[in-house]
């Protein structure tokens, strides 16, 4: 079990800035995130979209904001645990214990939930048979492409992931690419490559259509798709790969005994503490009168919450408010002379 001062749940901009605000106060933190990279919604939903309302930064993309925040917190050498979803939270005397889906354990007097709107999970095919075959012949990501060799694969989706995998897997498998409309969205070279493979007959393209049924529940043999004009077609298929994007699910957070309002956690706007002492919430996931879902609001929220975290983590020390411009202690912590 890893011991620290604050366990931050969520590596989005607010979770990352929390590391900074805690770090300049001399507190140690760990960050846990369900995604495979830091950045949260900024990196997953709009890495290339410009943001215009970060103070003193007239324009930056989600990706730039993330990399600048990572740069800003570098001096604190904080460990970020990715691909880990926090499943369990329970109290142990004055501390909180956090367990992840991969059985990693952390203990700290404080938890900072900066979980956005919950964890990202792939959107799935809503047919019952698809649910039964998930992990056997229905997949929403490719972990090891060896498992997709010499198969008849139906790929669903019209974005980058669907296109990239259609191209890659067509090298050794029979691909049918199925999308609900005629347009695909991808990098120019990907689109032209797809056109080429279509011409050569290496990738079959079916649009505009959607999945109607899976035709065998024990072992997948074929699927039925339905075109917009009502036409039905059966396609020989061993494996389905669905790339319908990610959805955000509140997930286990709802079960931790926190006061919730709709899908958000109620906090005291003085210190962003929840109804549980030592558990804080900041960013999109918290709610209080007048809450705005802005990145800058999240920055403010973690700044205030970090003061309360300090008091709980260092009960015998007095908290002193300091400016980064003038405090020698802070400059030391930042590694500046």
């Amino acid at each position, binding site marked *: 079990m890893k011991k620290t001062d604050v366990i931050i749940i969520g590596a989005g901009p607010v979770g990352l800035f929390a590391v900074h605000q805690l770090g300049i106060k001399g507190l140690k933190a760990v960050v846990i995130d369900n995604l495979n990279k830091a950045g949260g919604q900024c990196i997953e939903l709009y890495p290339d979209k410009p943001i215009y309302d970060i103070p003193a930064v007239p324009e930056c993309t989600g990706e730039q904001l993330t990399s600048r925040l990572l740069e800003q917190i570098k001096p604190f050498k904080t460990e970020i645990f990715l691909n880990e979803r926090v499943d369990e939270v329970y109290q142990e005397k004055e501390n909180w214990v956090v367990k992840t889906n991969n059985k990693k354990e952390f203990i700290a007097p404080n938890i900072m939930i900066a979980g956005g709107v919950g964890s990202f999970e792939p959107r799935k095919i809503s047919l019952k048979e698809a649910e039964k075959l998930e992990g056997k012949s229905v997949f929403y990501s490719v972990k090891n492409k060896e498992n997709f060799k010499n198969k008849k694969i139906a790929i669903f989706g019209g*974005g980058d992931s669907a296109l990239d995998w259609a191209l890659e897997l067509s090298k050794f498998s029979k691909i049918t690419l199925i999308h*609900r409309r005629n*347009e695909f*969205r991808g990098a120019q070279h990907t689109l032209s490559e797809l056109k080429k493979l279509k011409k050569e007959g290496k990738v079959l393209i079916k649009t505009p259509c959607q999945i109607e049924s899976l035709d065998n529940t024990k072992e997948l043999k074929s699927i039925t798709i339905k075109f917009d004009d009502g036409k039905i077609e059966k396609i020989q298929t061993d494996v389905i790969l669905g790339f319908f994007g*990610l959805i*955000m699910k509140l997930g286990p957070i709802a079960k931790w005994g926190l006061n919730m309002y709709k*899908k958000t956690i109620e906090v005291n706007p003085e210190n962003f503490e929840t109804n549980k002492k030592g558990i804080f919430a900041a960013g999109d996931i918290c709610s209080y009168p007048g809450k705005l879902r802005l990145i800058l609001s999240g920055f403010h929220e973690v700044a205030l919450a970090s003061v309360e975290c300090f008091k709980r983590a260092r009960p015998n020390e007095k908290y002193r408010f300091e400016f980064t411009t003038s405090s020698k202690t802070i400059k030391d912590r930042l590694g500046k002379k």
Partner: protein
Amino acid sequence: MPKITYKDYQGTSKTIEVESGLSVMEGAIQKEIPGIDADCGGSMACATCHVYVNDKWIDKIPKAEEAEIDMIDMAFEPKKNSRLSCQIIVNEELDGLEVMTPAKQT
């Protein structure tokens, strides 16, 4: 004030007044109409305010931008008349607009 009707997938409908200038999504959230989640808060970054626009109305609403259409790909069971309700801004001309909410958003 324009009246907007939200019909759920089972046919139950609710009609509310939505101030001009607000989106169909914001109107629904303010009056706690079920069936519209709006996880991202209207930044066109999720597809959980997805609605089907009544055929009579679909051409009276400004067409969806490319980014909205891309995002609708990520919605639950998109159809030809699918829109993101955060992108439909209410005005007097949309008085009487009817949208259907899908069986679920996620």
